[in-house]
């Protein structure tokens, strides 16, 4: 029964991916990418990787969809003048053959590796030392904390890069407003956004709090809250901040900063990112709350895009 479910799911994932790539209507392609995100979330659930499933569903359903739908709408509004010459047929066929060969090789490589639980046992053995029970959070914030710290810098860097793409006249105005223009539609979406935003906040807080022992954590919480922020912004319940607002800047760097300070405090005690015995859980939860806030705001602003000149607010 489980095998039949897995096979059906994998077939649907592949079909959806094919549709996302090769359907002619671009909106249909984006819709299928959203569906792919949902199905991948289910795949992670069947793999018992609930931590990943939470992130995938929140990103796939909440953030990537909005990002791509808005990007496409803005592109069409600009006239969509990006030059894209179609490839000649022989080049296409060659590319398809090449990719088929590559896929065959990759499949053989995959088949030659026996799936196993890898480091599960060793990580489980180390978990009591940090006093939390979710091994994924343990890996993210204790065993591989360095990676996670640098990753938060990558997120911040991506936002800086997106901001730097705005026209000179736009800085430091907010990005183009996300709210729906039609007043009737906006009142519907706005009322819902006002209800949903606090619920998303509660859910995000719960995910961080639960994340030390159950599936959940800063990344999942941040993406859920980012989805809530986006919905509220689309409904016009919240506006978008100016890029030079001090409060915004503080929230953006809060997570990486708290992480870095705690890491440096560890360096004073002996090693960078050392959590002294007995305080590990408290420090991890502190870092996670700060990170979740920063990730949520960063993701929401990444979706909103570059600063826009005030008279061209679309």
């Amino acid at each position, binding site marked *: 029964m489980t095998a039949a479910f897995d096979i059906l799911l994998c077939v649907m994932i592949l079909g959806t991916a094919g549709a996302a790539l090769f359907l002619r209507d671009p909106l249909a392609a984006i*819709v299928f990418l959203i569906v792919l995100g949902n199905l991948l979330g289910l795949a992670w659930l069947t793999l018992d990787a609930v931590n990943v499933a939470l992130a995938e569903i929140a990103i796939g359903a909440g953030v990537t969809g909005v990002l791509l739908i808005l990007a496409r709408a803005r592109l069409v509004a600009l006239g969509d003048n990006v030059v894209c010459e179609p490839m000649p047929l022989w080049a296409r066929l060659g590319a398809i053959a090449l990719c088929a060969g590559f896929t065959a090789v990759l499949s053989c490589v995959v088949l030659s590796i026996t799936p196993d639980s890898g480091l599960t046992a060793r990580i489980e053995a180390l978990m009591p030392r940090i006093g939390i029970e979710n091994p994924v959070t343990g890996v993210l914030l204790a065993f591989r904390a360095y990676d996670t710290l640098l990753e938060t810098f990558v997120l911040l860097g991506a936002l800086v890069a997106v901001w730097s793409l705005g026209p000179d006249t736009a800085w430091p105005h907010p990005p183009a407003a996300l709210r729906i223009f039609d007043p009737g539609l906006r009142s519907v979406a706005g009322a*819902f956004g006002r209800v949903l935003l606090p619920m998303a906040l509660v859910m995000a807080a719960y995910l961080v709090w639960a994340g030390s022992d*159950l599936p959940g954590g800063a990344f999942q919480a941040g993406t859920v809250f980012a989805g809530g922020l986006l919905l509220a912004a*689309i409904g016009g319940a919240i506006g978008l901040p100016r890029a030079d607002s001090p409060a915004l800047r503080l929230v953006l760097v809060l997570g990486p900063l708290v992480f870095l300070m705690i890491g440096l405090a560890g360096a004073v005690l002996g090693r960078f990112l050392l959590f002294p015995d007995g305080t590990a859980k408290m420090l991890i939860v502190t870092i996670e709350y700060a990170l979740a806030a920063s990730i949520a705001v960063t993701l929401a602003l990444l979706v909103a895009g570059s600063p826009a000149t005030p008279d061209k607010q679309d």
Partner: protein
Amino acid sequence: MPDVFMLAAILLLATLGVALMRAVRGPGRIDRIMAAQLVGTGGVGVALVLGAARNAPAMLDAALIGTLLASVAVSAYVRGRTVGQPETGGPGRADEAGRSE
């Protein structure tokens, strides 16, 4: 009992596959968005059933996130189709240009 839940999950997934036919065929944009919405709620159902089959309460959180954010894509679509038009009504340029496809 787990087998019963897995059977229900398989049937739900097959149902979603049927709904996806509408997303492939269209014809309107709105049909595709509706199909995506259905897959969203269907996915939540599958997550609930899988959680019961595996005895994993954490999967309920996945269902909760799925429902919380199911409507975000729809509102983005409604927002996106009015890009580039003035504050008062009427379908916008984005939609007109898109209809030729």
